[in-house]
Each structure stands twice: as C-alpha cells, then as structure tokens.
C-alpha cells in the first residue's frame, strides 16, 4: 500500500466527518490566532508608548526646582540658565531654554479661551522641545530681547479662537496686554490626558512682564548636541548648578533625584527607559495571558483529538480485521491529525495577520514573528501528539478488543 493511498484514506477520513473536522480546525485556528493577536496587541501598545516618548525628544534634559515656591536661595533664575551656556564648563550643550509657564485666558474679539500652559521661553525651545511651528513663524531672539508681545498658539487654541479665520497677525488679549499671533504650532500627538495642542508660546521677557513677574523660572530645558551626550550634559549641568546653589558635589548623583539638591533633572531617555520597562511588564502580562490561552486551546485540541480517535476505535478494529497493518493505520491517523493541525494552524496565522491590520482597542497590533512560530509549533505538536497517541494505542489493540470498544 503506497503512501499516496494512505493520504487518500486520510483525506476520505476527514471528509467523512466534515463538521467535526471543521470544528477541530476552528478550535486550532482560534487558539493560534488568539495567541498571535494578543502578543501583537501587547507589542503594538509598547511600541506606541515608546514612539510617543521618542517624539518628546530624547536629547534633552529638563531642570526643575524642587524647592518650596518663593524661596530665593533655591529657585531657578535666568542667571542660572544663562550660566549653563558655557562652552568651557558645558561643551556638550547645544541650547538652553529657560521656561516659565502659567495658565492664562486669551481673548479675541470677545471670545475667551483658557490656555493651560502659556509658555514663556527663548526661540531655542521650539527645536529643543520638538515642537515645530506649523504655519507662520516662531519668534526670534530679537523679539525675546526686545520683549515684543508676539505669540505662537497651539492647534486647539487656533481652532477655538479663530474658527475658519487665519490667525496670523491677529491681535489677542492676554492678561490685559495685546499680543500679536505670529505662528501656529504643528499638530502634536498627545502624550497624556492633557491636550498638548492647547498651548501658547511667547517670548520669555514678554510673559514675565505681563503674566508671571520676574520671579523664579519653572524649568530650564537643556538640549544636548546628540542623544549620546545626554548623560554628559546632565553632569555638566549639575556641576554648574551645584556651584551656583552652593550644593556639595557629593549630594548630586547622576540622576539628580537626590532630595538634598534643590533642583531635579528629568531626562527624556530615563523617562523612555522607565516607560519601556512598564511596556515590557505589560507585554509580559499579555504574554502570560496568551500562554494560558494557548494552554487552554491546547487542552481543547487534545480533547477533540482524543474524542476523534477514540470514537473511531471501532473503525480501527474493522480495518485491522480486514488486514490493515498497524503502521498503515497509524500513518493514516497521523496524517489526519497533521492535516487538521497544519491547516487549522495556517488558517489561524492567516486570521491573525488579517486581524492585525485593524486597530484593536485603540492599539495597532505589531506581529511578533516568534509568536507565530510558537503558537503554530505548540498547536501542531499537541495535535500530532494527542492525535497520534490514542491512534497508536488503538492500533496496538487486538482487533477484537478494538471492535468491542464502546
């Protein structure tokens, strides 16, 4: 009896029970597809998080004051910010942007809009904070030094105050003073609950004059020449600041989070590392869920295979009584199990690939290639093992025992 004939027997065996074969394949399909998709969703959300953080810029550090408000000895001042621009002590610093921010109400022709963060800074901030100007222009260093009242508004502000109107060169009122809109920021993806587009940026001098007064800075944004030099910049910045604030050098560590220092340095790559860790935990969690569902799916496959073969023990008995050698019977059932698990698994992979092209709960899934191999491998191995084991047991029975099997 040729192998080809045995394959035909297997195909006939499968087609003799179309519904059961289809359901078995469906079980395998769902198991495989679920695992691949689940891992893909976990991976996709991790990727989305890291993409968003990278959009913040990875080559900047932010210096913030940790002191209680108003304490002049610990507050960040414009002098400190200027001191950071030092080619000798801080050679890796590309730009330094002092930042003040306040909430403010912008008024245009009787329409009010409350802005969460009305930022006062220097022109270098646009590049350092990865916040490009969409239309119009940013303000210049000259605007800043002259204290000209110009403002660049975010997309949300533009939509609220200037529906259907070009906001450039329009005059808005902020804190009782007139500001001229010179540009609109490019649309930015939100990183958190706050709308990143609900903002306005104006020269530091103008904002201090109109809104915040000449007190402490909120933060200083320092941009490194390249992402690799972020750590160097951080230590340079701490050295200079420690000098200025008379902090003993030992109190500052690389991450600048020591409570003894009156300032805190936040590093985007640190943020990224933290978030990546979180995302990894998330992926591990989803992976665990996927592993459990694969296990459950595997038990389902096991069950169906056991039932399928056990139910046909009698048929095996008949075949043996008609003179089928053990190996022929075993081969037939192994081929049936292989076809079921391979076809089911392949369909599962196809379903997962199709499913991954859609957004699932707001996440664009990103397929992990190894998850395909794992899911497919496990389901096929289970199918073969639990299809083959009862078949070989039944094929080894004496025909009369197989025939009597209920």
């Amino acid at each position, binding site marked *: 009896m040729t192998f080809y004939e045995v394959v035909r027997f297997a195909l006939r065996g499968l087609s003799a029970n179309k519904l059961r074969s289809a359901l078995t394949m469906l079980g395998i399909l769902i198991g495989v597809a679920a695992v691949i998709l689940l891992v893909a969703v976990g991976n996709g959300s991790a990727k989305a998080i890291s993409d968003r953080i990278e959009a913040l810029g990875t080559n900047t550090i932010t210096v913030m004051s940790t002191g209680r408000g108003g304490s002049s000895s610990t507050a960040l001042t414009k002098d400190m910010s200027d001191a950071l621009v030092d080619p000798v002590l801080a050679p890796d610093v590309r730009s330094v942007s002092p930042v003040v921010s306040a909430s403010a109400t912008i008024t245009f022709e009787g329409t009010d809009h409350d802005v969460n963060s009305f930022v006062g800074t220097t022109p270098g901030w646009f590049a350092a904070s990865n916040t490009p100007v969409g239309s119009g222009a940013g303000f210049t260093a000259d605007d800043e030094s002259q204290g000209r009242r110009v403002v660049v508004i975010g997309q949300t502000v533009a939509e609220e105050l200037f529906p259907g109107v070009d906001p450039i060169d329009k005059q808005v009122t902020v804190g009782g003073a007139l500001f001229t809109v010179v540009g609109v920021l490019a649309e930015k993806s939100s990183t958190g609950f706050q709308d990143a587009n609900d903002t306005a940026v104006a020269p530091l001098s103008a904002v201090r004059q109109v809104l915040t007064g000449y007190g402490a800075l909120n933060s200083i944004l320092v941009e490194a020449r390249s992402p690799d030099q972020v750590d160097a910049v951080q230590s340079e910045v701490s050295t200079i600041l420690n000098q200025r604030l008379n902090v003993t050098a030992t109190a500052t560590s690389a991450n600048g989070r020591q409570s003894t220092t009156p300032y805190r340095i936040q590093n985007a790559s640190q943020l990224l590392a933290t978030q990546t860790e979180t995302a990894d935990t998330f992926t591990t969690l989803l992976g665990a869920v996927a592993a459990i569902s694969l296990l459950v799916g595997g038990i389902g496959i096991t069950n169906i295979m056991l039932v399928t073969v056990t139910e046909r023990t009698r048929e095996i008995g008949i*075949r043996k009584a008609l003179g089928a*050698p053990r190996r022929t019977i075993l081969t037939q059932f192994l081929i049936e199990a292989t076809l079921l698990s391979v076809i089911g698994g392949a369909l599962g992979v196809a379903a997962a690939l199709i499913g991954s092209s859609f957004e699932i709960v707001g996440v664009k899934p990103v397929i992990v290639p190894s998850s395909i191999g794992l899911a497919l491998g496990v389901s096929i191995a289970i199918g073969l093992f639990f299809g083959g084991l009862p078949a070989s047991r039944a094929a080894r029975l004496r*025909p009369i025992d197989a025939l009597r099997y209920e």
Partner: protein
Amino acid sequence: MTRPVLDVRDLTKVYGTGEATVHALAGVSATVERGDYVAIMGSSGSGKSTLMNILGALDVPSSGTYHLDGVDVSKLADRQLALARNRLIGFIFQAFNLIPRTTAAANVELPLAYAGVKPRERRRRALEALDVVGLADRARHEPNQLSGGQQQRVAVARALVTEPALLLADEPTGNLDSRSTDDVLNVFDQLSTAGRTIVLITHEPEVGARTKRLIRLVDGRIVEDTRQSPINRPPVGPHAGRHAVSTVQWAGGART
C-alpha cells in the same frame, strides 16, 4: 485430499483471573476441509463467539494450536497476522461493521487496498463481488442508505473480494429479519456451491440445517459434530430437513 483449511487442536481460552476465571473454551479440536460449509451452534455463553474470534485471528487462544491453510497462526508477528487476515480470511460480523459514511464500493475495496491492489483493478473486483451478492446497483450507496440485509450482503462481498481460503461469519443473520436472512443465506449457498469454505456461527436451527456440517458447542466443548450433506455436493438449500447422522465425530473432551 490436500491439507485442511482449518486445523485447531486443544484450543482453550480463559478470561479473567482468580475467582472470576471463565473458561470460554475448554479444549476444542476440529479440522475443516476445503469446500466444507460448517455451522457452529450453541447457546449463549457456549464459547462459539470466542472460537470464531480466534479462528478469525482477531483474538489469541490461551493455549492450543491453530493452523490456517497450513500456517501456524499463533507464531505470526503483527505484520504477518495482518497479512493472514487480509489474504486467508474473510470475516463477516453480526453487526455488519461497515465503515460509516463510506460507499459500499469503497467498503468492499478496502481489503484490496490493504492488499496493495491497484485502484482500477480494485474497482473492477469490488463491483464483481457486489454483483455476486446482487448489489451491483447499490455500489455508490453509503451504509446508512442500505437496509440491514443489504448491508450484510455488502459485508459478505467485502469478505469474499480477496478470494480468501476461508469465509467466517459470526451470526451473520442475527440482526436480520427472515427475508434478509434468506437473501444472505442464498448468497452463502451460492458461494458454497462455487467451492468456497464457509464456517458460520448461528443459534437459529433453520440456518444450521442448511449447512453441510453441524458442530454443537456446550460450555466451551464440542458435544456434537454432524455431517448433514456431502462435502462435494451443493448445499441442500432452504428446504433442508434434519436427515443427518451420517457421521458423528466426538472431538475434544467429550463429556462423560
């Protein structure tokens, strides 16, 4: 005469152990010559089914020897045993045992497929065998589309398609009504006339009466072995009376 088709000596079969031991066969010896048509009769529990399963190489005896067409079956390995079942024995079951959801023709082809016959040749011989049992027009029907009698005749076709030395039938008419019984028995008569060796089990006297030789089994022993009609003549057919007693052989351990 050539060697007997079937030759068993001191067959015993013991089920269970200890207290629950059952001696299904307690030493059975018999020979069946080529062309004979034998009925084995006995009440339920007399061991006739056990004997039949051993004769069909579906089960192994606890002790004793079994020569089938000169081959010692008890010495065969699994693969050769499969070959023996395929080539030497055609087995017909009480419950038909056709493979479900598979056409009559495919069922009949099955033993030929295991014998390695080419598909075209297989089809031809399967249709011939179905023609012998009068079901050539039902070749494409599946078992659940056939009546009990038709299913049993398909099973008979399947048993004889490999032209085995021995046809064994385990209560072939046990699940059939009288008309279907007649159909199946007529097929057996035909096959016997054509020179086939047939051994069947039955508990129906009218079935036993149509055979050429009648063996009675009680408690795992042969108690009666009657030649009802000559081995080289066609069987007497459906209107056979009990005119036997030509030769009575006491085989095995006769009861005292």
